[in-house]
């Protein structure tokens, strides 16, 4: 009976994993396919990787995506931290509910709507004041910052509400002016949440296709946009190679992040043990 159950559980597990990972595995395997046809195996080769590195279109898109993601993550972390502090440390100021609602709304707004409204905004701005002259890096970064900031705000706010407010009061009581206290006490204590927020914003920006498509202009193709437009013409092996590289990049980042977090946790546990002695 027990054995039967466990066999059933195991097969469900295997099926689940297979469903998730076989497509990924096939992408990786076919990226080493010598054949030009994406679905026919023609022997092992790494030529698509070489071709990928010579393809300036791909390199430009990848570089643009990275630049946008880094800038977005940085601005989203700055603004999101400020908004999170306002929401959890300034008490019930007038218009707080409205402010909270408007900060969080990009989380639930359909991406198509966000993208379209931002596009209309940029077009009217261009007609009115001549800025932005053309759409690309700047407009995509602004658009990404507006929605990534919402995620950072939520992370910072939850970290701050879990933090003992008397820490900041104590610092003020000891002579720290409010702005000084933010830099001395608040920011160092929410730093892990800010790093988490930065990484999340970075990933969201790197990943986004819909909003970027709306607010981008000619010559401003991000990596997801490039892949999507290439796939429309049929899956080519160099896309498989590109996907493999992205999988590798993401896996390494996840492993590094996990390792860093485990080390931090071990350090805390060690401190606790010393304290218990």
């Amino acid at each position, binding site marked *: 009976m027990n054995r039967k159950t466990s066999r059933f559980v195991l097969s469900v597990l295997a099926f689940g994993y297979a469903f998730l990972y076989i497509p990924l595995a096939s992408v990786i395997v076919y990226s080493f396919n010598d054949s030009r046809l994406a679905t026919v195996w023609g022997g092992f080769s790494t030529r698509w990787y070489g071709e990928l590195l010579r393809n300036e279109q791909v390199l430009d898109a990848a570089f643009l995506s990275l630049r946008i993601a880094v800038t977005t993550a940085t601005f989203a972390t700055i603004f999101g931290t400020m908004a999170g502090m306002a929401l959890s440390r300034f008490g019930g100021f007038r218009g707080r509910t409205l402010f909270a609602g408007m900060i969080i709304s990009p989380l639930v707004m359909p991406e198509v709507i966000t993208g379209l409204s931002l596009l209309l905004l940029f077009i009217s701005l261009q007609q009115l004041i001549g800025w932005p002259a053309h759409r690309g890096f700047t407009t995509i970064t602004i658009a990404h910052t507006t929605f990534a900031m919402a995620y950072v705000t939520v992370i910072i706010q939850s970290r701050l509400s879990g933090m003992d407010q*008397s*820490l900041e*009061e104590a610092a*003020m*009581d000891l*002579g720290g002016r409010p702005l*000084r206290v933010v830099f001395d006490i608040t920011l*160092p204590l929410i730093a892990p949440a800010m790093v988490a927020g930065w990484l999340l914003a970075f990933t969201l920006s790197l990943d986004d296709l819909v909003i970027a498509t709306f607010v981008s202009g000619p010559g401003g193709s991000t990596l997801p946009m490039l892949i999507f437009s290439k796939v429309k013409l049929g899956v080519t092996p160099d896309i498989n190679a590109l996907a493999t590289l992205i999988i590798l990049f993401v896996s390494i980042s996840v492993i590094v992040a996990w390792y860093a977090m485990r080390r931090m946790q071990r350090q*805390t546990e060690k*401190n606790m043990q010393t304290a218990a002695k």
Partner: protein
Amino acid sequence: MTGNTNKNTGSHPFIELKDLSKHFGDFVAVDTVNLQIGRGELFSILGASGCGKTTLLRMMAGFETPTSGRIFIDGVDVTDQAPYQRPVNMMFQSYAIFPHMTVEKNVAYGLEKDRVSKGEIKTRVSEILELVQLTRFSKRKPNQLSGGERQRVALARALVKRPKVLLLDEPLAALDKKLREHTQFELMNIQDELGITFVVVTHDQEEAMILSSRIAVMEKGRFEQVGTPKEVYEYPDNRFVADFIGTINMFEGTVETAGDGSISVASDEAGAPLTGLTDRIMENGVKVCIAVRPEKIFISQHEPENQEDTCLPGVVEDLGYFGNLSLYRIRLDSGKIVQVSAQNRRRSAERFLEWDDRVFISWPPRSAIVLTE
């Protein structure tokens, strides 16, 4: 020295609260409180949770703005000053030690904000760590410290700035019983040594009694009584204070005869007339309460001979042996339960009293407290 306006005489109160109120919406947390605290006092504000004592303390620290009223410290109106401008430091109930700084850095923080020179910071920090016996922990992080050690870091951090007033919010509540007793005396010694005025907020009446030079008993945002521990315990102003501090037996009744500073009270609960001493002029028929502390009552199996004492017969309902003393619950003929505590002076294998023994409880008139409010 009434009418003396010279502030350098030292005769003015060191801390003065004038008609201080704090409302949170419709809720009145602190209700027109007036208080004067002298220099070097160890003053306690005692009350159950939600009585407004922490709000009062936070107004003195500057974290809450009073709805009305003024706060003076050393003759200066500090009501509109920000927390970082006041000559006041606070020790928080949670201790609020900065977790990302070492003990040393925690203590030095306040001095750094005051732009004290590096050399002076070093000497003052090591002096104060010496005082609270934390020198060997100076490089540790807070999560490597025990509860008692953290409490001393918080104390050192608040004291190192040499404030005029130190505010302590439930300073010992987070410690276990044994450490609490030890720390109580340590706090008193430090206060004595530095001569800083301490204002302590606590819900623990034993702590307030031991520590304080004076106590304010607070209830529903108001002070019920302000006085020395002895005054508050032996001469409570009203039923609330009598009942709140320690244990007490209360007999409700009406004045039968009054005169010569002594009254006789008829009480159904007691079943016999009770005598009390009072300076106040009382009329016959006024409702009063006669209150007696358990340790002021004598208990015996024979009727006492002294005719002046109040004497009531009863039966031992319950008794508890605590080693140094015994507690008795005596049921009077009226059904009222009276608590009596007696020191076990003699050492004997046999118990003095047993359950259901017929006994007489008695006390002299000067032990009875007459309460009208």
